[in-house]
């Protein structure tokens, strides 16, 4: 069992990293550990647990910003924002149940470090697009900051971007500032029934190319629809979400429903149904429970129009959920110890995009590449970036790529 260091403040974090450097002891950097099972299995003997760095330090609803210590539970932040009718517009998913853990466990630092974005990614952007400022300790033991507490800022390099999605391999973040936005007054969803994957791709492209401001576009093939309680039957469902002020949502529901008429039979989901459905899509509910929970799970980002071709190249025994207008494919593979990497990587390479093995047994993740392998030049540049922050490899070494 690895030892754990639990710093109380940013100063302690700096001391912990300097200790790690002095002793050649790499650190596993964690918040509350809810996404620990993602990535290449670590080889560290010491854990840097940031969960005591907790608490919102600044929240100014009128300025649309919030700052919090990195270990602040995301649930706490979402509750605070909801009390002022605001939200994190990138709609962070909760991977807890998907990874066999509890729901509602993540931290804001973990959400940023994994660039975790949900269905609204297509309209509002990713976590990284809402990440305005950071304080953290690099793998050199330096306390640094980047960005600020204002939305519009081009002063110096935007190191927030490179830290978002770096899986704790560059710096241990101690405090972050994010942009927050008003929560929509209401929402509704249009469901188009019975489309195959290719038809669904065309329907979603038409909806997303319309002026009706679609904030979620997912396709749920018939083999997964039974996992979604609010869907009326087992036919495939292509779901389009509309959010905003009530008169606007009413107007757009009608207009979008008309636009979708040539594609198939339609139904409208009310606010409560729509909210429940999109929460389940966000958290990929079909693959979180029952027999499906044992399936190796891929998260694949591709050009939306190519998604059904990628899916066609994967074994028909795989189950899929399409989000992001088709651009995000969740693919659950049929056999517990066989992620079928070659087929996935090959299909993704042909279409352009990247695949991450979000869930698999540790032994599988130790032998297969979890993150998309990069072209040699890009991989070398990534390694140089790693070295610029963490030359001795003391922060989550190898979590993303061997040697990085």
């Amino acid at each position: 069992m690895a030892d754990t260091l639990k710093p109380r403040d940013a100063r302690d974090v700096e001391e912990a990293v300097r200790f790690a450097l002095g002793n050649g002891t790499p650190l596993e950097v964690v918040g509350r550990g809810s996404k620990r099972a993602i990535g290449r299995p670590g080889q560290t003997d010491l854990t840097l647990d940031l969960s005591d760095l907790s608490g919102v330090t600044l929240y100014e609803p009128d300025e649309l910003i919030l700052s919090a210590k990195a270990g602040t539970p995301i649930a706490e932040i979402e509750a605070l924002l909801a009390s002022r009718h605001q939200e994190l517009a990138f709609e962070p998913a909760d991977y807890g149940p998907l990874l066999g853990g509890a729901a509602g466990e993540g931290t804001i630092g973990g959400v940023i470090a994994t660039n975790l974005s949900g269905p609204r990614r297509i309209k509002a952007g990713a976590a990284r697009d809402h990440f305005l400022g950071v304080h953290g300790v690099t793998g050199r033991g330096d306390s640094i900051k980047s960005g600020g507490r204002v939305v519009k800022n081009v002063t110096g390099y935007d190191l927030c971007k490179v830290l978002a999605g770096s899986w704790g391999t560059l710096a241990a973040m101690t405090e972050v500032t994010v942009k927050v936005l008003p929560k929509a007054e209401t929402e509704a969803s249009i469901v188009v029934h019975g489309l195959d994957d290719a038809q669904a791709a065309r329907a979603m492209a038409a909806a997303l190319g319309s002026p009706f401001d679609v904030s979620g576009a997912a396709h749920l093939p018939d083999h997964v629809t039974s996992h979604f309680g609010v869907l009326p039957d087992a036919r495939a469902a292509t779901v389009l979400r509309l959010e905003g002020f009530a008169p606007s949502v009413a107007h757009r529901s009608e207009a979008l429903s008309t636009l979708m008429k040539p594609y198939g039979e339609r139904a409208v989901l009310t606010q409560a149904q729509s909210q429940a459905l999109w929460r389940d899509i966000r958290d990929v509910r079909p693959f979180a429970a029952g027999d499906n929970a044992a399936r190796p799970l891929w998260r694949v980002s591709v050009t939306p129009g190519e998604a059904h071709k990628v899916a066609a190249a994967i074994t028909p025994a795989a189950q899929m959920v399409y989000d992001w207008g088709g651009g995000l494919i969740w693919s659950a593979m049929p056999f517990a110890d066989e992620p079928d990497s070659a087929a996935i990587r090959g299909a993704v390479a042909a279409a352009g995009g990247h695949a991450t093995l979000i869930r698999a047994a540790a032994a599988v993740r130790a032998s297969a590449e979890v993150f998309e392998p990069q072209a040699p030049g890009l991989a070398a540049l990534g390694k140089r970036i790693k070295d610029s922050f963490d030359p001795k490899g003391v922060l989550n070494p190898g979590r993303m790529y061997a040697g990085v």
Partner: protein
Amino acid sequence: MKMPEPDRNVLARRARIVAALSAIVPGEGVIAGEREMRPYESDGLTAYRQLPMVVVLPETTQQVSQVLKYCYDEGIKVVPRGAGTSLSGGALPLEDGVLLGMAKFNRVREVDFDNRVAVVEPGVTNLAVSAAVAHEGFYYAPDPSSQIACTIGGNIAENSGGVHCLKYGMTTNNVLGCEMVLMNGEIIRLGGKHLDAPGYDLLGVVTGSEGLLGIVTEVTVRILRKPETVRALMVGFPRSEDAGACVGAIIGAGIIPGGMEMMDRPAIRAAEDFVHAGYPLDVEALLIVELDGPGPEVDHLCGRVEAIAKACGAVSCQVSQSEEQRLLFWAGRKAAFPAVGRISPDYYCMDGTIPRGKLPLVLEKMKEMSRRYGLRVANVFHAGDGNLHPLILYDANVPGEIEKAEAFGAEILTLCVEVGGVLTGEHGVGVEKRDLMPAMFSETDLDQQQRVKCAFDEKGLLNPGKVFPTLHRCAELGRMHVSGGRLPFPDIPRF
């Protein structure tokens, strides 16, 4: 402004260098005559001028790669340039440097409406991207005021914004991928038509890097469907505090307008005298609020914003009843800079961002500074996101006034940082704000930024002298903090 010392060895080899570059980019792609190079001696920050050693205008990625490889091998500095509209001196040439102009990369390579992306070369102007997709009802959202002239490549370098970025984001939020050449000639691709990228988000750090990390040769941008309806409100307030409170109240009501612009009394007066937009002249602050979206939504929100404005003490409020009227509301704001240009021989445009709540304080202090420096100031303000553009009025022909205007500007930006804001919201650091960087960043912060620069350009040849007040050789940045063998903070429990 102190720039890096010219390398005498490079200057001594100038003829050979020009010949070698001409072999890579044949024909008129290499400009070495003094008169022909004159148009390149400065960018939008005209106070600084310097002729480059030579100008190169490549046409292909291969040529860019070969030029950079040659310069890398020979130790020659390179300054990239798009349309040269930078307001911070980002494209200011170096005496011993190659000025690499990207204007010939001017083709739209692909428009893909199904996937809502356009693939363009970096020399395509910002407005030309929107023009290329307009026939299907699409547009490219970031709209810097120089959009007729500025290029997408330059927009990436500066992470350009515009009046609509409160709702639609800056360049960094609207770019999906790029092809780029590193200083050593290596060609890499970041991102693509899909969302996010594997590995580190390098596109995110390249965007806004002011031409210090690489030369972008192709860009994939996100395009959006144009909103069905756009209307604007023009609201006058007796006090700037009221206008500031109104902006807060609109956002507090859950409304994110497409654009929200504020002008102060001197700016209103100058604009009205210039374009006769019908601006009220008896108010301290004028707010233009633009709402876009489906018709019923826009109508609904116009009503709500009007009610909020009245509750905040507005003394005048007009809602545009036609597209013509909406454009008229904007005409004064859009002409604010030239309008100020009419009432003063010269003006100096600043670009700080502040937490919006600090606006009354900052305006008050600016009035005091204005008295102290004896220079007038007019303010236009992207009110929604706190991005302030004070225009300092001066006369370059009066000895000492440029220096006074610069000192005034520096004091404003320092104040922005003091109240929790930043030095630059959208114009970039360049040479202009380079020496103010320590007001915002510690040496440790800046060292880490320079280490990132080293990962892309370890010889420091790409656009040196910009952004960083002190240049370090990459080898000097290697130090680390190491502590002894004791476990830290032993007083707390370990598990």
